[in-house]
């Protein structure tokens, strides 16, 4: 186990470097940092431009990309990050806030999805082919087919606009459409935060609940049809124990893996949801930086996202080996 983890960790370094290099080239070509710099600093002199190119390693040509990549990597590793092009701000403080906000939103959404989804999945799988199985399954498919921006826009319209019109007195039905806090709020305010999180979390949960319901149902059905379950029953173990000790334990295995991978992807934020609700998370950070062609903001974002995915994939493999004694690493 230890050797497996060590080997994977060592392999993660070259993987990360290759991926970040590809991303570096893609973003360098795609955003053209020098042009973005000129857009934000329209009166920059040739000397300023040259200095900017030199200090950020924005050399041209393929060799220039490699040289520039290592220059960027050196700065990134030693904590010497270039400032953002737009506004010339430090990148890390904003990125840190965005990361916290995103993990909060997506984490709640994923947790809801796992809890509610797995419950429904088990509920459906216990009576396969019944009316309730069909209902749960069809509902999950419908929920899965709703694009997140559709549910977000509809929820905003109903709970932020029309509830205020139809029932101006029922303030508990009025939800804000954007941000983490109301404008002008200072410091931590739990009730305001929950109020602002409600609609985005519902949007996220619609998708995640559907996904986990379907996975849980399929996984449990698979186990329920297996031979060892028949053996367990024929030994005379009561049904409850068969389900909890024999069926559920095995059915949860793929779910744990799926959840670990999901938590890895969660660091990238939810681009669609966060942008519709103007929620200052990673997804919104990305789309803003993308819109401004802000190379110094995009690169650290990419590194964090890729790192999280690689690490949580490793965690998924480890959890699988940990939970399933048949797998030896």
């Amino acid at each position: 186990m230890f050797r497996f983890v060590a080997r994977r960790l060592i392999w993660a370094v070259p993987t990360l470097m290759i991926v970040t290099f590809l991303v570096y080239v893609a973003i360098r070509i795609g955003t053209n940092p020098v042009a973005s710099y000129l857009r934000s600093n329209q009166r920059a002199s040739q000397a300023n431009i040259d200095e900017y190119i030199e200090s950020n390693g924005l050399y041209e040509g393929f060799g220039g990309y490699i040289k520039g990549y290592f220059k960027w990597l050196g700065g990134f590793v030693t904590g010497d990050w270039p400032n953002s092009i737009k506004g010339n701000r430090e990148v890390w403080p904003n990125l840190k806030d965005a990361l916290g906000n995103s993990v909060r939103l997506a984490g709640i959404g994923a947790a809801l999805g796992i809890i509610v989804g797995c419950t429904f999945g088990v509920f459906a799988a216990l009576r396969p082919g019944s009316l309730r199985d069909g209902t749960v399954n069809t509902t999950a498919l419908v929920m899965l087919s709703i694009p997140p921006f559709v549910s977000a826009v509809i929820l905003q319209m109903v709970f932020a606009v029309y509830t205020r019109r139809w029932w101006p007195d029922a303030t508990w039905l009025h939800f804000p459409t954007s941000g983490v806090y109301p404008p002008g709020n200072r410091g931590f305010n739990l009730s305001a935060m929950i109020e602002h999180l409600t609609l985005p979390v519902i949007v996220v949960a619609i998708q995640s609940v559907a996904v986990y319901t379907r996975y849980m149902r399929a996984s449990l059905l698979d186990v329920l049809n297996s031979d060892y379950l028949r053996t367990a029953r024929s030994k005379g173990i009561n049904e409850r124990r068969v389900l909890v000790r024999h069926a559920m334990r095995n059915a949860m295995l793929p779910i744990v893996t799926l959840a670990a991978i999901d938590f890895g992807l969660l660091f990238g934020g939810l681009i669609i949801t966060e942008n519709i609700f103007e929620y200052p998370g990673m997804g919104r950070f990305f789309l803003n930086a993308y819109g401004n062609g802000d190379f110094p903001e995009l690169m650290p974002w990419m590194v964090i996202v890729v790192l999280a995915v690689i690490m949580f994939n490793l965690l998924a493999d480890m959890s699988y080996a940990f939970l399933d004694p048949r797998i030896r690493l």
Partner: protein
Amino acid sequence: MTDVLNSTVAAPAGPEIGLVPDADAEGLTSKSLSPRQMAMRRFLSHKPAVIATVALVLMVAFVLLAPLTARYGVNESIFRTEGGVSNRYLTPRADAWFGTDEIGRDLYSRLIYGTRLSLAIGLAAAVIGVLIGTAVGAYAGIKGGLFDDILMRVTDIFLAFPFLVALLVTRNMLGEIPWLEPIVGNRTSIRFIIFLLALFGWMGVARVVRGQVLALKEREFVEASRALGATNRRIVVRHLLPNSIGPILVALTFSVVAAVIAESTLSFFGFGPQPGSNATSLGLLVGSSKQNVLTGNWWMVVFPCAVLLLVALTVNMVGDGLRDATDPKLQRGGS
């Protein structure tokens, strides 16, 4: 208990299947059914899928006959309104069934043209993606080795990013490479979006086909055909691909949904095909709902969203039914 339910649901190879005494009335025909016929039966017994298929066919017919079914042109404003009211932001009424937008265009007609374009984009991107994916997956599966490893790593890398991020970054990059312009066109054109979606559409299919090829290539019928001197190419084209047509079809339907939704998402954020290139897509119409949420023009929000949802749902249901029908291991209604 699995054996009991296999008698009617699953499709084990063998001629005795049609003769199982307790099979349902249709299964009592004395002749054996081909796997394809059995899949067809399973699909037809799956009610939501059949309903969805009918709905989808009707919808496609409806948008294909757009000049007849639409009441106005795609960019045509309604000039004569009852009572001479302004044609901006009309609520649904006899003149304009689904209301009008900010410059007085009929939303109903625009939705028909938009759905037509979105379905065309989705279908084109999905077909190209599935063709590439099938070719790459089959090649990787039958050859193995270095190509296979590289393919799997590349898909891993793309899966490490949120889908939209990969799409947006690649979009920017392709748009900045000058010699690609004649091939893929301007980045606001329809051709560009199809190319972009196809570029990301093949990887899932390649994995599925590779898995199928790996699973099938050790089977006896492939060995037999190899013993008869068949080349790899013949084995893939004549034996392996026809046997994996089910999963490929399923992947195709889900790719169509994915492409339609991806196109809508891009348009929603203003990165899709632009109206200037005659590209009124469903995504553009859903995207315009953003401005109309807070002003309370509910028809501009509800109808485009409903149509997009309807498209996604019907195609998903057809895909779901196809998967259940073609994969004998996935039984509905088990023990």
